[in-house]
């Protein structure tokens, strides 16, 4: 492999950067190492995924009327949903995920929500990530608190992505890693910087974390262009990053907890139905999740992936062929460790009288129940610690039987 010279970097960066200028923002994937338990990946879909299109309840008598031009047709119809259980379907842009469902590896959850009941993306994401009941006042994320509560502390964290999202921030050290378009710095400079940072706790710790994770990534890279800057824009780039993340997790000393960020789900206008804006994003997500599975290889059989969003969208299509901020949403639990092939939903119905505040899908499942079930049954977090990770969640008891025992 030819290492780029330093003079090349700006030009190379220009190709990478401007090549993806029209594409989505990069995801960040954040990791934390955890011996023993199977890997956990949390995928946050920022912007509020429309669960009524991703997982259309085609069997609900009010679905097609409420959704009009953006309704997904039922299974068997032209461009229809991929059937799940005779009532719910999966958006036709996600055939790979549907294969996982049929393989018993995908659990679909519907009408789910965090503790948040307003309609701000940013507060909604804060609640989803801080695990509390309110958007502010909790500076750490629930995954970081979970790491702190697990037996055998001293666990290290890492982010694939330049910075660490709130869900993984907190007292337990968590690093970050992303593919770089730039040549590596020489060891002599890093030694001098270590000295320069000896009085600076933050920068000193960050430098140590970054150095270790660079080493891990170099050992576990998939080879074919995954190291350095992935080529191509948009989905191709995301797939490369997800696959590399899978390799890193699968390494014997690799991290065991990852967080993947994906933006761009805020479909206020021109959302589309079986084809169009949202379909394009869902198709990309379908491929990115499959790339993660490929990267994990045999480790996939022990993996759980939680895919969630800050809230849902309005039941009724709005005036611009899209949907506004809502409440109840869809979520997914995916992976070889998951007892899948089923839909978990206490379906409230879509008729106006069944909606939350007359406009949104009423939430009937608490996302914290899912998360607590995963932490307890997948990562082995003691029951007594769950309340520390999710303060104020007494009403949301840990869900059972999400995973193979």
């Amino acid at each position: 492999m030819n290492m780029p010279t330093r003079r090349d970097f700006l030009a190379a960066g220009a190709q990478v950067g401007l090549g993806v200028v029209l594409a989505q923002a990069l995801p960040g994937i954040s990791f934390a190492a955890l011996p023993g338990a199977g890997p956990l990946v949390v995928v946050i879909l920022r912007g509020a995924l429309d669960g009524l299109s991703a997982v259309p309840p085609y069997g609900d008598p009010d679905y097609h009327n409420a959704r009009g031009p953006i309704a997904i047709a039922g299974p068997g119809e032209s461009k229809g949903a991929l059937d799940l259980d005779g009532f719910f379907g999966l958006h036709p842009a996600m055939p790979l995920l549907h294969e996982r469902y049929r393989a018993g590896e995908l659990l679909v959850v519907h009408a789910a929500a965090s503790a948040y009941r307003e309609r701000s993306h940013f507060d909604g994401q804060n609640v989803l990530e801080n695990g509390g009941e309110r958007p502010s006042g909790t500076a750490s994320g629930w995954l970081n608190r979970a790491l702190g509560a697990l037996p055998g502390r001293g666990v290290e964290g890492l982010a694939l992505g330049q910075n660490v999202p709130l869900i993984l921030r907190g007292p337990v050290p968590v690093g970050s890693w992303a593919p770089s378009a730039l040549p590596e710095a020489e060891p002599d400079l890093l030694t001098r910087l270590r000295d320069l940072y000896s009085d600076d706790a933050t920068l000193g710790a960050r430098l140590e974390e970054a150095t270790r994770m660079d080493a891990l990534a170099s050992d576990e890279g998939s080879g074919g262009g995954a190291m350095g800057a992935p080529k191509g824009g948009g989905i191709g780039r995301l797939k490369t990053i997800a696959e590399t993340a899978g390799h890193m997790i699968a390494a014997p000393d690799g991290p065991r907890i990852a967080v993947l960020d994906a933006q761009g789900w805020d479909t206020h206008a021109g959302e589309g139905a079986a084809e169009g804006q949202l379909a394009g994003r869902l198709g990309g997500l379908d491929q990115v999740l499959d790339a993660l599975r490929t990267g994990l290889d045999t480790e996939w059989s022990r993996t759980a992936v939680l895919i969630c969003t800050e809230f849902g969208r309005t039941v009724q299509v709005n005036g611009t062929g899209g949907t506004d901020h809502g409440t109840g949403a869809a979520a997914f639990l995916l992976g070889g460790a998951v007892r899948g092939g089923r839909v978990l939903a206490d379906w409230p119905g879509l008729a106006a009288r069944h909606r939350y505040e007359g406009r949104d899908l009423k939430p009937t499942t608490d996302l914290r129940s899912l998360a607590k079930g995963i932490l307890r049954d997948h990562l082995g977090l003691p029951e007594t610690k769950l309340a520390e990770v999710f303060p104020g969640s007494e009403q949301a008891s840990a869900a059972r039987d999400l995973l193979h025992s």
Partner: protein
Amino acid sequence: MLADRATLAAIATNRFGFGARPGELDAARADPQGWVLETLRRPYQPPAELTGLAPGAELLASFLALRADRAAQRKAIARDAAANNAAKRPGDAVRERLLPQYVAQAAARTRIAIGSEHSFRERLVHFWSNHFAVSIDKPICLATAGALENEAVRPHLDGRFEQLLVAVETHPAMITYLDNQRSMGPNSQFSLRAARRAERATQGRTGLNENLAREILELHTLGVDGGYTQADVTGFAAVITGWSIGGGEGRFGSGEPGGFVFREALHEPGARTVLGRRYAEGDMAQGLTVLRDLAAHPATARHLATKLARHFVADEPPPGLVDRLTRAYLAHDGHLPSVYAALVSWDGAWQSAPLKFKQPCEFIYSALRALDLAPPEPKPLLASFEVLGQRHWSPGSPAGWPDRQADWDGADALMQRIEWSVALADRVGEARSAPEAADAALGPLASSRTRAALASAASGSQAVALLLMSPEFQRR
């Protein structure tokens, strides 16, 4: 107790500006506070770097025309599969035409930030542009995000907030970013006409879109805890139905293509209530009156005060400073220079210990300023922002870029800065003396540990990288 004047000059240029250029510490030394505020006393002149950039309306009109072409081509392709090979892919045409416009705007913005002698003003441009963020990952904004900053933000950051607010919310970039152009009242002329025809065919094409109304309340004015309800969002959305753009498809074709248009036919007639106040029907004036009241609202004053204090002084701003700025805002009817003056004259803003971790763009600007480097060609210049994680005008959401250290200080982000600094230092070679650059950029803020590291570096180039990555250069 205030530090000595050399230290205050370094704070003025680094904390309030984009970092000292050579000679700037001397210029600021006589009156550091005055240095900060002086540039706002002059009437606004567009920087020369903006000359020749196309107006936002023209760029949006190009986008609309290209999108219409694309739709027509898709129809043609559907008719004739062979056309698929002959025709250029329509998405490419948008990129080819509009990406160079984006590059030109971003390069101009960067050149201004690096060369400006009025970098407090430039920092305010970035601050307000981010407060009213639009993001280029929505294709319609690729070429208009920069235009919003240049046309609505730059001329209005030294007036009253209401003027800035109105300029932004009626700019075609904001209208289209937050999807208001086709939002229509259920009882508007257009909706009633549509209802008389086939109902099913127009479902999803008539009705409100509440995106712009919600973000004005949540992000631009009151703040998320500012006391509004869902009913206020819906009511306000009805008020601003008709705030649209010219040159759209079909019935939306009238008006200057790409420019702001008030479309009477989409507007929901009648009085509305927002935040407990009743607004009589008045076409576009109804919405302007709501904006005026929002700008004067105490929650807006506190929201803006908090953001300014966070940007300049601390991730968790001192309540005393927030109160002070809130009072200044309310006492002066939202006159922004009065708020800036209240900030700059607050002693706590002049502590010599660094208060903020630099965001990537601040780091890049300050590095090129400290080294007195001419910006490279636009594409490699902009690649720097890409690799450090802060591409111009692409925060990905209307909330804008976050403004706390925890959002920017990831381990990998630090390593990217190191690698970038090495690459820049290699380009500089021995042409710059790092100790001299430390004197000129940081003055007394450069620590003895950093000075020792520069003195003992293996090469002049390595010393430059060490300076840029020193703890005091990473902060302000």
